[in-house]
């Protein structure tokens, strides 16, 4: 049951008929129905992934058995008569990273049927892969720091660069990223930031950083949502104290925790997704959000504003990798090459509210998107941002225990 929700979520992302024509004209009226529905499904998927835990057997087997429900409602997912895995590509990714147009375009070009499964955190994806439940997937979209972990635990194939076309179109800083030198195992695909989204009219001024929440905590009782991720939330707080997102100093983490406790009454809930409707209706004043989620909502509600905090925030890269267990590496390379094409990557930026690491794709974008600091923050802003990196196990436990205290007090 949870799986079919997720699946439909990805299928329902965008209606093909309303592709760039309506979207690329900037602030023109956008599809009313689709984004809200997508959000709902996306949040359902997030919550359902929790439900799935209660039923481990289903959770672990769904990659193989649960794929058929996709057949409903989307032409892209009608089971191919040929059957066999050679013409099917199972992708394990984040909500909102693919849409019908993308999948259909790929099928037209290669004849390969794409089936998308979703996860809502790197950790959940890792747990499933490590438990052996992800053997059907040939493409996964881990974030930067998770690539390090996956390489460390020997889960990823070294990419055969002779089969990858278009890597030189990447911006220089993604040619040789710190999390995966020389892109040996991963292809940077999508990047973005973490920031705050709010309604300037309601707030009455423009917010420039995390400190807004501390300065106004008296007036914000249960009016703020933060991302449901210990490293993002404690990291942002560490940052306001002038420390690194990736500190391994328990004293600094403790200071950040104590500072976070001050705004506890202001926090309505910890939500990675699912804050959108409450923010749009004004029940929530400020939400901490990932840039592409915020931009997707702003496309629908242009009165909202997304900022990357001035004190610095986290910047993340989501990549494509091929796990060693991939049943269909041929199709995986085809998918990677398809997404590396500048036209396709540019299209994704327009459609999905994401930022692309490809210089060639960036050059194809209209000026207004290139200059959109929500998608592409200035170098000055980015220089203050950090990528979240793995910390030793002992420190992860320290983070986790503070998180338990925070969410249970």
């Amino acid at each position: 049951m949870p799986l079919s929700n997720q699946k439909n979520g990805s299928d329902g992302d965008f209606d093909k008929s309303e592709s760039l024509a309506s979207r690329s004209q900037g602030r023109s009226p956008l599809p009313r129905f689709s984004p809200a529905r997508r959000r709902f499904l996306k949040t359902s998927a997030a919550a359902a992934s929790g439900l799935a835990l209660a039923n481990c057997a289903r959770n672990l087997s769904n990659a193989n058995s649960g794929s058929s429900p996709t057949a409903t409602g989307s032409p892209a997912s009608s089971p191919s008569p040929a059957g066999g895995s050679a013409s099917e590509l199972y992708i394990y990714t984040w909500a909102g990273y693919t849409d019908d147009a993308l999948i259909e375009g790929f099928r037209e070009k290669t004849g390969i049927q794409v089936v998308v499964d979703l996860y809502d955190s790197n950790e959940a994806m890792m747990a499933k892969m490590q438990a052996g439940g992800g053997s059907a997937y040939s493409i996964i979209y881990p974030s930067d720091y998770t690539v390090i972990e996956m390489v460390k635990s020997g889960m990823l194939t070294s990419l055969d660069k002779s089969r990858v076309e278009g890597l030189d179109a990447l911006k220089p800083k993604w040619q040789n990223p710190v999390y995966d030198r020389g892109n040996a195992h991963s292809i940077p695909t999508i990047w973005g930031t973490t920031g705050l989204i709010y309604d300037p009219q309601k707030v009455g001024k423009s917010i420039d950083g995390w400190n807004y929440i501390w300065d106004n905590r008296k007036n914000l009782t249960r009016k703020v949502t933060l991302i449901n991720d210990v490293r993002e939330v404690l990291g942002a707080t560490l940052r306001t104290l002038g420390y690194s997102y990736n500190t391994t100093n328990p004293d600094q983490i403790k200071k950040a925790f104590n500072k976070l406790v001050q705004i506890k009454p202001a926090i309505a809930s910890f939500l990675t997704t699912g804050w959108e409707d409450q923010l749009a209706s004004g029940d929530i004043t400020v939400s901490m959000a990932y840039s592409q989620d915020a931009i997707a909502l702003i496309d629908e509600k242009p009165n909202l504003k997304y900022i990357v905090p001035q004190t610095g925030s986290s910047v993340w890269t989501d990549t494509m990798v091929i796990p060693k267990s991939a049943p269909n590496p041929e199709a995986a390379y085809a998918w990677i090459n398809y997404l590396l094409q500048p036209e396709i990557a540019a299209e994704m930026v327009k459609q999905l509210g994401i930022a692309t690491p490809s210089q060639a794709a960036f050059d194809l974008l209209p000026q207004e998107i290139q200059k959109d600091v929500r998608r592409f923050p200035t170098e000055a802003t980015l220089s203050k941002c950090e990528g979240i990196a793995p910390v030793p196990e002992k420190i992860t436990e320290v983070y986790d225990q503070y998180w338990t205290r925070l969410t249970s007090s």
Partner: protein
Amino acid sequence: MSSSTPSSSPLAEPSPLAPSGWRKLTRLVEPIVLLVPSGVWLLLLLVAPTLLILELSLIPGFRVGQAAGGYGIGNYIEAFQPIYFQVILRSILFAVGSTVICMMLGFPVAYWIAIMAPLRWRNLLLVLFVLPLWTSSLLRAYAWIAILRPSGVLNSLLNVLHLPNQDWLNQTPAVYIGMAYSFLPYMVLILYASLEKLDRRLLEAASDLGATPQQTFWKVTVPQTLSGIAAGGLLVFITSLGEFVVPELLGGASSMTMSRLIYNQFLGATRNWGLGSSFSILMITGVSIGIALLLKYGDRDTTVT
């Protein structure tokens, strides 16, 4: 019956003892055959996974994909740290609270359907009451968000009635509302089943003998339905103790329950499956002790499923 075809295997020297031997064999085999489907089911889907969790819980700091250390009780020692107490306490509070609410709301309804409603409406009423169970619990939780949020349905209604607005979403009241709503049908069903069997002549006798309705209720009705009350209460208590969706979606920032804690250990940043397993085992043990006590000291007629 298989005993009717003893000659299916041709015997070389048919002995006079054969028929009774067959009967003996059948008597031995029959219960086994009858138990096999559910037995296999229980072994594969209940006993084996529980043993697996038990094993993981005895490997301190077990993390999947890493070399495991030796056995030990480190996880259990860790599980009893004070920071987890309030999580456990909150789960129990949520469970007790929703059980009490379900009981208070469910008993009158079940009583009315079983005793006062016209006979031909009873089945329909029951079906209507169970109808919400046919939708996803996730959808129902989202519906409550739409109702309870500050600009939601509830406050619009209160505005019309000129009553003060409520801000329950993301707080404890929302959790109680959501859980009570989710589990009320179970309570009503079980209470109905036991109230239906109520001997009404006793009610008449009580009033003939001058008992007030209140006395009749407490001294006649309640004692007779005690088993149903216990079974319903236990079912709601156990299900709400393990509830994940409602506290997660409606409970706000301070709503960590056992389920979420276990979830975090398995799928969160630490991925400490060992610790998560020890929490699971503690929870299973706690609930089992509760059921065992109820079976031992509760009414013998109690049928706990």
